[in-house]
């Protein structure tokens, strides 16, 4: 694991789960370029670490993340934004191979909501508030909000939420299929931890290819996706864990994974 000292995030590990906490409470965990650089670096470090099977991402008790640093971009020109292209850094998150579970308490707005949607599963406290309020400051989401929200909840709802900027709570998010589960806020991290730990206990190569196959569904035709899935399925037959898993099944015992 990386030994880097971080300023804006806290990095810990619990067995096979790598835990990242956004930690810029004085700025409502605003996703500054500096914070995002640290976050992406730490995510990639966990992604490379063979002792990590899944990643948990969380924020504070009242705020997960309140979007970008508006002050820093208010005066920028289009060309400035293009040349700095700070959102390019975010693309590295979608290249992660390991599943990321988000544990959200409080506000996940703008970039905070987009960051949550980049995670593979979302566990939210009853006090969670989501939203893409960019329209209210004269722009639209720029880190995937229009695409990921639409794919998660469908066109009608996404259109309403993007064009009004309205905030919505955990139960509406659950109803729309944006999140996996609601929990009392006191138990959000634990509930997310249970899910992350369960995923981390599964054979890691199958987990990796499972994630890849599910994400492929957003990018391709049904036929292309089915073909892709089939190839990954066949590919897993060269893993030791496939041999072990099927042998254990037939011998009616628990498998012992080697993550290989």
């Amino acid at each position, binding site marked *: 694991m990386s030994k880097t000292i971080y300023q804006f995030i806290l990095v810990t590990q619990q067995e096979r789960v790598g835990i990242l906490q956004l930690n810029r409470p004085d700025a409502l965990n605003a996703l500054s370029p500096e914070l995002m650089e640290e976050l992406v670096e730490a995510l990639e470090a966990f992604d490379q670490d063979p002792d990590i099977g899944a990643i948990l991402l969380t924020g504070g008790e009242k705020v997960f993340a309140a979007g970008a640093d508006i002050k820093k971009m208010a005066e920028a020109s289009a060309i400035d934004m293009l040349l700095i292209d700070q959102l390019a850094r975010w693309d590295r998150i979608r290249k992660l191979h390991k599943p990321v579970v988000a544990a959200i308490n409080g506000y996940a707005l703008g970039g905070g909501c987009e960051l949550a949607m980049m995670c593979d599963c979302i566990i939210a406290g009853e006090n969670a508030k989501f939203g893409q309020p960019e329209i209210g400051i004269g722009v639209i989401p720029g880190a995937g909000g229009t695409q990921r929200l639409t794919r998660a909840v469908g066109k009608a709802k996404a259109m309403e939420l993007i064009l009004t900027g309205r905030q919505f709570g955990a139960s509406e998010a659950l109803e729309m299929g944006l999140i996996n589960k609601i*929990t*009392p806020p*006191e*138990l959000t991290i634990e509930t997310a931890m249970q899910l992350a730990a369960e995923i981390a206990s599964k054979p890691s190569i199958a987990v990796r290819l499972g994630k890849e196959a599910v994400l492929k569904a957003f990018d391709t035709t049904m036929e292309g996706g089915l073909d892709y899935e089939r190839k990954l399925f066949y590919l897993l037959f060269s893993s030791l864990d496939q041999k072990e898993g099927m042998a254990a099944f037939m011998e009616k015992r628990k498998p012992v994974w080697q993550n290989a």
Partner: protein
Amino acid sequence: MSLPKLPDCLLAELNESGVLTLTLNRPDALNAFDDELSFALHEGLKFAEKDKAVRAILLTGAGRGFCAGQDLKSRSIQAGSDAQVHLGESIRKRYAPIINKLSAIEKPVLAAVNGVAAGAGASIAFACDIRLCVPEAKFIQAFVKVGLIPDSGACWLLPRLIGYGRAMVLAMSGDPMTAEQAFAWGAVNKIVEADSLQSEAQALAVQLANGPTKALGLMKRAFQYGTAVSLESFLNYEADLQEIAGRTSDYQAGVQAFSEKRAPVFSGK
């Protein structure tokens, strides 16, 4: 935190036991709600929710009434630029936030109903967790007489307190519910003579403020969750809440005191 600056129409006093007393203070208007009072009460309740020193809230009225509901002389919000009145706006902006807050505050809220409670004034009493009232108190939902429906949650809250049938008769007739009826039907926990209402309400509030505040708050969460789900879902949720309660230092203190056969001292944490 210190008490927020509130206008004279709402008195707020926090005592050393952690009881925040909020007194509706427009006695000449039987404490009817104008914009100022409704926004002030919401502010007061927001403070009560956030401030850790507050462990119980006591809501009462100055003078001879508890609260006469909407001040009909003050119709500012719902008076739009068109001639049409917008009563929905008034509820959304002024009353719903108060009722939501009374129910969401994870601390006990008591109403000491010192006289008439009408319209939104009655609803606010119904939204509290515990109600004491004087023998002369009346709960009036006379909306039907002007062609409106009981508001500020009355059609949700009152059937749960006294039953669907009784609540419907009150709503459709506009008849007042007397203190005796309210007590007999379970809407009021105790009737107390006027000269001892405040002291008795304070004593009860202090007792609740000395309780295991986190657990009391979780009880409110449990009661509310139960109104909307199946028993099976509820039991699942209950397990989460008990898990949370079991991690409080008050639980430790309670178990310890029980084993030592003495009264527990709860910190609220």
